[in-house]
């Protein structure tokens, strides 16, 4: 504990108290004001000052405990570290994915046993939200890929839940399973399988080959190549996006050290919540578009 830290702590504490007093006085003054919006506007400056100085105080105190600014010493890894489980060597992200699947399965069973029998004709609360979600994905699938089968929206809903769960696992300090190329490639291969399955089921094997060679047989290799490129592009997109988000968050945490208090939760709103949601949406809409292209 050197002199500079003491000065920082004391100064930020003093500034915090000053802004707190200012805020309280402004609040007291503006309570009589008729327009609540105007009153809020007047209180804004001392409030922000209070938040910033409070953050600085906490961050300095935390970095005292942690050991100050660490500097960027990030060990980037394309693939996650591996764990030895008996004779098997398993990636840690795979374990996270299995744990996630277990959690989702348990939640499903609990839902089926406890919540589902209570459902009524008039939706309320949880039932309302679930019905809205199911209806949305149903309509979305029909609009994008056409009326193929009732299982397709269910599969897409499963993928959405899995991807959002993967993003949520990052909030618990785990490396998200979606930042593993093999995991995303597996999902993309499922899309590839579905694409061929629906294409062949709708048009027959000969019809599928014929539609691939539709303008002229010369173009057949190109079309096959573009079909094979679909899962690769899906997998790489998801993997790159998730790994990029994870790297940005890790950089923030590592480079700020103790000063990351509160900053990461603000940045995480984008990188751990909004970004995965957008990527889930894009993964699903692209899968459905590829499926529609194969069946048209």
């Amino acid at each position, binding site marked *: 504990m050197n002199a500079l830290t003491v000065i920082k702590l004391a100064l930020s504490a003093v500034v915090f108290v000053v802004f707190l007093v200012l805020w309280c006085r402004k609040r007291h003054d503006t309570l009589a004001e008729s327009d609540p919006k105007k009153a809020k506007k007047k209180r804004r400056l001392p409030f922000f000052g209070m938040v910033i100085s409070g953050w600085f105080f906490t961050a300095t105190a935390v970095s005292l405990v942690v050991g100050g600014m660490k500097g960027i010493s990030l060990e*980037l*890894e*394309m693939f996650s570290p591996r764990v030895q489980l008996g004779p098997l060597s398993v990636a840690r992200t795979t374990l996270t994915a299995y744990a996630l699947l277990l959690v989702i399965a348990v939640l499903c069973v609990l839902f089926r046993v406890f919540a589902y029998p209570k459902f009524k004709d008039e939706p309320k609360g949880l039932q309302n939200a679930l019905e809205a979600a199911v209806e949305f994905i149903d309509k979305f699938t029909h609009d*994008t890929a056409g009326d193929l089968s009732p299982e397709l929206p269910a599969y897409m809903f499963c993928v959405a839940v899995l991807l959002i769960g993967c993003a949520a696992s990052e909030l618990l300090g785990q490396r998200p399973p979606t930042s593993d190329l093999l995991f995303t490639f597996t999902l993309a291969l499922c899309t590839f399988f579905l694409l061929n399955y629906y294409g062949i089921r709708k048009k027959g094997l000969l019809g599928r080959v014929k539609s691939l060679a539709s303008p002229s047989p010369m173009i057949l290799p190109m079309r096959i190549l573009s079909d094979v490129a679909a899962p690769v*592009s899906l997998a*790489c*997109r998801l*993997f*790159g*996006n998730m*790994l*990029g988000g994870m790297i940005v968050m890790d950089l923030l945490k590592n480079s700020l050290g103790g000063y990351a208090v509160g900053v990461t939760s603000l940045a995480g709103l984008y990188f751990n919540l909004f970004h995965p949601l957008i990527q889930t*949406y*894009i993964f699903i*809409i*692209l899968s459905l*578009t590829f499926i529609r292209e194969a069946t048209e």
Partner: protein
Amino acid sequence: MTPFAAALALLPALGAGIMMGFATSKAVDATARQPEASGKINSILLLGLALAESTAIYSFVIALILAVK
């Protein structure tokens, strides 16, 4: 030399960024002209953005493969 190669591999992100901006500006134009078609424009825009973004993502993945041991 590898860091330079990784940095050069990130060049496609420039083109992807510019073109995504172009696409968004066109979508804004279209929505301003026909606000009732905004839902359809939105989904088409997102699809195009995702496809344009994949260029940048590929370059990012390649740069990572080059830079990370």
